[in-house]
């Protein structure tokens, strides 16, 4: 057992966490006369280490994930989801949400496609909640930064919110809240093109390039903010605003996170440094979930497909779920 644990610790610290890179950057900076402890040196240390780590992980992860995702185009997920009923359909929807390639720009076609195929509204929403909130990439990145326990906690509560949220929306019977043009869309099934291994490799490679290009500015911004928090903002201020003891920390983190549009990869460095400065873990989870799941652009997009009442319900349910996770996390962990 001990050997397994040592092996796992090594994997987590050195492979996922890239501790060696942190040491290397530290040594190089010390050589350049910018040792630890003083302002520019420590800022640079956090910045360089984090940015290299995230980009390397990002490239490797997107490749692996895209390869897996190439087996689950939404057309196929839709067929799989159609085979299940009741809460199982919601669970399958939430799980497929984690492996189906998704970006906010494709939420409308997916929403329309699912609805026109006769999938229950609740199942579609389970999918729409889990898809941006929980994906394979966030699982591995969270593991690298916060460790396995927190990563699994994040994924599990994310799935719980997706399943419960979808189930509640189902119970509310808001089918009339879907825009008319979607309800009238005919159901057409097409065969997805069959892909060879080389095709999938190609797809994964292209995804790496386009994703890195797309999220790079968010990551750089995230790491700069993270490094600034890490070095310029005193711990007691973070603790007093976002600490476990502050009752309004969780709703505040959620309210700040909801309108923001950022990728989970850009959010993690900010979360990491806030946590190190004494913010409550539940508060941090709320912040990350709020940023990734809801954003102004995605709301504007969805408002074209669903009417106000349903949009409000959707946002409300997700926010309440995120806030419960925050308080729960602060109490338990």
């Amino acid at each position, binding site marked *: 057992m001990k050997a397994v644990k040592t092996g796992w610790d090594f994997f987590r610290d050195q492979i996922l966490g890239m501790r060696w890179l942190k040491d290397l950057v530290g040594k190089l900076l010390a050589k350049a006369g910018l040792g630890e402890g003083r302002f520019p040196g420590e800022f640079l240390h956090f910045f360089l280490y984090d940015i290299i780590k995230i980009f390397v992980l990002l490239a490797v992860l997107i490749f692996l994930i895209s390869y897996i995702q190439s087996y689950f*185009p939404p*057309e196929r997920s839709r067929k799989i989801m159609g085979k299940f009923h009741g809460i199982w359909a919601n669970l399958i929807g939430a799980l497929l949400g984690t492996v189906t390639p998704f970006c906010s720009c*494709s939420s409308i076609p997916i929403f329309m496609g699912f609805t026109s195929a006769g999938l229950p509204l609740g199942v579609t929403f389970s999918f729409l909640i889990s898809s941006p909130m929980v994906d394979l990439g966030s699982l591995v990145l969270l593991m690298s930064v916060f460790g396995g326990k927190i990563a699994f906690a994040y994924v599990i509560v994310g799935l719980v919110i997706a399943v419960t949220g979808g189930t509640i929306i189902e119970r509310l019977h808001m089918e009339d809240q879907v825009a008319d043009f979607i309800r009238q*869309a*005919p*159901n*057409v099934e097409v065969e*997805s093109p069959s892909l060879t291994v080389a095709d999938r490799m190609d797809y994964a490679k292209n995804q790496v390039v*386009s994703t890195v290009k797309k999220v790079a500015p968010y990551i750089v911004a995230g790491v700069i903010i993270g490094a600034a928090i890490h070095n310029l903002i005193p711990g007691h201020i973070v603790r007093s605003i976002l600490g476990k003891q502050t009752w309004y920390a969780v709703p505040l983190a959620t309210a700040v996170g909801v309108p923001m549009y950022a990728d989970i990869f850009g959010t993690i460095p900010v979360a990491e440094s806030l946590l190190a400065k004494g913010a409550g873990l539940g508060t941090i989870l709320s912040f990350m979930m709020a940023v990734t799941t809801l954003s102004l652009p995605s709301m504007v997009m969805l408002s074209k497909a669903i009417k106000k009442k349903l949009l409000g319900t959707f946002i409300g349910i997700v926010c309440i779920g995120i806030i419960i996770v925050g308080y729960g996390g602060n109490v338990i962990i």
Partner: protein
Amino acid sequence: MNIKVIGSGCENCDKTNAVVKECLEELGIDTEIERVTDLVEIVKLGVMTAPSVMIDGKLVVAGQVPSKKQMMKILKK
């Protein structure tokens, strides 16, 4: 041959269109490329990801910009 490039006017759809056009020219195939950009029309085709390419009603590229090599292979069939 009926070729549809499907996607609601994103940058990647333009890229896909360009790739298809280039391949057609190179292979000397004389046919129009039909752009499908209206969301309702896209859903009517049963497609949920953009950019996609459909040839004679068969989905050959889904949710990605095809490389030139890939597109040539598809068109030669």
